[in-house]
């Protein structure tokens, strides 16, 4: 009998506790554990564990922030895009194809940015059958959307900083983090936009 009473009391205490405390946020635990357990290696410093405003917003909202928050941050990201001084957005699509194929760069065993890793996630040119499906197909990119200056600008801007257009996009911000140079982004833009590029055949 006494045991039953104690058990009842314990259950009541548990119930109270579960009512009084909101579900625990494990992000701080996760962060401090990672800060303690990771170490810098090669070009990958410990600063890479820190969230910037975009990452923090997406992390805290499970990639689904309130629209007004997303709009504001997207504007900031777009304003930080460095457009080519010569006004030309199209480079050489053949060089672009090589950059799209190359999946190296920015990891601890790399020297810096190297390739664009495009085929890892996207179908791009028609001759490469080994392509990923994390992102949408880019085959016939301009053939479908048109070859206008606006679409050129969108393609360049999207490669430079995908988050300027879709805040929690899974796509890296290649120009923003200097993983790709201005010339490399021009070459990739040409791969998508040049009427002679195999992408648009």
């Amino acid at each position, binding site marked *: 009998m006494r045991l039953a009473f104690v058990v009842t009391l314990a259950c009541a205490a548990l119930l109270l506790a579960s009512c009084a405390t909101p579900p*625990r946020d*494990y*992000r701080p*635990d*996760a*962060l401090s*554990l*990672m800060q*303690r*357990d*990771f*170490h*810098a*290696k090669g070009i*990958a*410093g*410990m600063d*890479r*564990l*820190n*969230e910037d405003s*975009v*990452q923090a917003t*997406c*992390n805290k909202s*499970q990639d689904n922030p309130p629209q007004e928050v997303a709009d504001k941050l997207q504007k900031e990201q777009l304003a930080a895009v460095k457009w080519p001084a010569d006004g030309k957005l199209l480079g050489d699509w053949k060089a672009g194809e090589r950059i799209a194929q190359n999946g190296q760069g*920015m*990891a*601890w*065993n790399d020297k810096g940015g190297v390739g664009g890793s495009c*085929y*890892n*996630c996207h179908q791009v040119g028609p001759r490469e059958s*080994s*392509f*990923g*499906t*994390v992102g949408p197909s880019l085959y016939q990119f301009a053939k479908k959307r048109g070859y206008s200056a606006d679409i050129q600008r969108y393609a360049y801007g999207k490669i430079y900083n995908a*988050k300027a257009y879709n805040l929690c996009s*899974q796509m*890296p*911000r290649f120009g923003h*983090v200097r*993983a790709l140079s201005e010339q490399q982004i021009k070459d990739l833009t040409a791969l998508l936009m040049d009427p002679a590029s195999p992408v648009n055949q």
Partner: protein
Amino acid sequence: MRHALVLGLAAAISAAPWQQAAAQAADPTAAEFDKFREIMEQDNPAELFEAKGEELWRARRGPKNTSLEQCDLGLGAGVVKGAYAQLPRYFADVDRVMDVEARIVHCMMTLQGFKYEELAKQPFSSPVRTPEPVSLATYVAAQSRGMKIAPPQNHPKERDAYETGKAIFHYRAGAFDFSCASCHGEDGKRIRTQPLPNFTKPATAIAAVQGWPGYRMTGGVMHSLQWRLNDCYRQQRFPEPGYASETLSALLTYLTVNASGHVYRGPGIKR
């Protein structure tokens, strides 16, 4: 060998659940590889490392010249059978959750007198060298072949490890804004031609556990889950996670608990 091959082919024809999953994904490359793996598993080189691991388990080694036979993998000192299927789990002696390699490293330190720094110096296999904890983990894992994956979630720290691991899994940061979930949070995606299993759902989370430790045909080396997670973080463009660290135990808790209830087929073979 011919007998094994016929058996393997028969097994490949009578589609196992994981093959049905591959067929559903309509990925002929993946389905073909699954068939190939099924045949290869009949004579899996992982068995050599399993035997090496058993030898290491029983040998008196280290500064203390002791075997690992008194190592407690969670089911009591010296109990290896079935221990792997119930890892990661909470260990009172260290007051934390440990995965199989973290526990093996712990036992090598406490029972045999090895130093963490030595074990963590080159913890991953190369074509010329297989670190001892990798062979030991292969041996321990093999002793749970055919058993249901059932990591306990009874101790508060086991539940904390799961939730912390889940938060780590979803943490986007680094040069490319990637988290584990960037590649393993959705169904039916792939990188190039490599399918990306969704580890957030019980039905597909088994892919994080099945076949590990695994003999990797690329390079011909035996690899463990510590290596797999390390290489994921390299590709995630993060700094490097500590070998056998609590971060990785938490992440493995999240992955393994999600895979609970599936039958573990033993050390496997990987592309």
